[in-house]
């Protein structure tokens, strides 16, 4: 008798697990997002805390070794002196620690920006300066950037940001799948930005106190954000900007200024100090 061979129809669902793929995806995605958010928060707090313990001299020494000049070689001496004098004047009301020496620079690029970086280096761009209507508005910008240095924000941002972004990159790098890595990196970046926005708000608050002390009122202090708002409206900002911005929304910054003035009963009106007569000339004409 010969052997009978046969293939019977195999039952379904043996080699394929029955599951709800959408639910499975939502659960995993939620878990991954929570994980990344917690990781970024913890590493940011830790990284920033550790970075802030680095002595300021180390920052300065580090920047001395960097072969980069923040200042434009063609900076008009008058403008340099004025920016320096203004930062001294405003800085008096900011309680700058003794060991901190501020380096104020001018950059003739037409960017609408100013920033503070390691070693107490503060840079103001021509694009921003030329849209300043009076000294009070400029003083707010100066005070804001000096406050960043006093708060040690540049090094804290570097410490917190680098450690968390490195961790996210290492994790998502091994996860494979381009889209997954992208989603998780974006989650990390958005979480990261909330720290940056908090630093901005803290700098705004410190700057406003300094402006009130310097001029006796805070008139014109919110001018920068009004100018920024107009600038962005002109460019047509997208609705997602609130999440993806390193800075708080301009409207909320203007509100915060008004709220703080009300709480402290600071006058919101007062005589505005004009910019020096040569200011436009220093910038090489406002029209350019």
């Amino acid at each position, binding site marked *: 008798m010969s052997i009978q061979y046969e293939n019977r129809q195999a039952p379904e669902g043996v080699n394929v697990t029955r599951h709800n*793929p959408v639910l499975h995806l939502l659960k995993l995605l939620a878990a991954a997002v929570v994980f990344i958010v917690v990781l970024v928060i913890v590493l940011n707090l830790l990284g920033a805390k550790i970075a802030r313990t680095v002595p300021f001299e180390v920052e300065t020494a580090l920047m001395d070794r960097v072969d980069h000049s923040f200042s434009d070689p063609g900076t008009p001496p008058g403008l340099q002196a004025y920016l320096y004098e203004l930062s001294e004047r405003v800085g008096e009301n900011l309680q700058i620690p003794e060991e901190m020496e501020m380096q104020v620079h001018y950059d003739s690029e037409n960017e609408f920006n100013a920033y503070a970086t390691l070693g107490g280096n503060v840079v103001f761009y021509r694009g921003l300066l030329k849209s300043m209507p009076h000294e009070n508005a400029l003083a707010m910008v100066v005070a804001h950037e000096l406050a960043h240095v006093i708060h040690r924000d540049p090094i804290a941002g570097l410490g917190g940001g680098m450690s968390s972004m490195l961790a996210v990159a290492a994790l998502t790098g091994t*996860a494979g799948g381009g*889209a997954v*890595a992208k989603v998780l990196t974006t989650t990390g970046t958005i979480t990261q930005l909330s720290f940056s926005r908090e630093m901005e708000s803290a700098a705004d608050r410190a700057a406003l106190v300094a402006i009130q002390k310097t001029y006796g009122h805070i008139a014109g202090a919110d001018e920068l954000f009004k100018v920024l708002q107009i600038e962005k409206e002109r460019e047509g900002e997208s609705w997602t900007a609130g999440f993806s911005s390193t800075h708080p929304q301009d409207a909320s910054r203007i509100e915060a200024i008004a709220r703080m003035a009300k709480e402290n009963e600071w006058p919101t009106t007062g005589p505005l100090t004009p910019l020096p007569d040569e200011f436009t000339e220093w910038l090489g004409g406002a029209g350019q």
Partner: protein
Amino acid sequence: MEIILFLVLLVLGYCFGLLAERRHYRSIIAREKVMNSLPAIASRYPPEDKPYDQQLVVGSVVIGSDYFKSFLAGLVNFFGGSVVSYEGLLDRARREATLRMKEQAQKAGAEMVFNVKYETTSVGNSKLASVEVLAYGTAMKPVFAPTPSAAGEG
């Protein structure tokens, strides 16, 4: 904008992936029921009840993943665990390859396929994976040799 594109791709991947999978399973099950009459056997020892001609038969298929499945698999890779989203893909590929192998055997006039083996490889990049499954075996074609009585001895 990017998030919208991502969601659209995810939804499209899910819908079309589901449709393609259902349609493929319907076709596989229907064809399997027919092809069960030509057994594919894993054994290396073919029957010796009668003479057979032997022939190599091969069935191969490449099945692509979709955006949804790949994304889900990527997430599973983050935590570890069974990549269930690819199970259907591989199951379909194995069964389709077996069917194609059997179809080739049937055309050759075989009664069964012996010593069936599978090979698999991934095709394409890691972002959007495709899988190839190759099934091969020895098709057994009965030889209708003259019987000793009919041939006579002298």
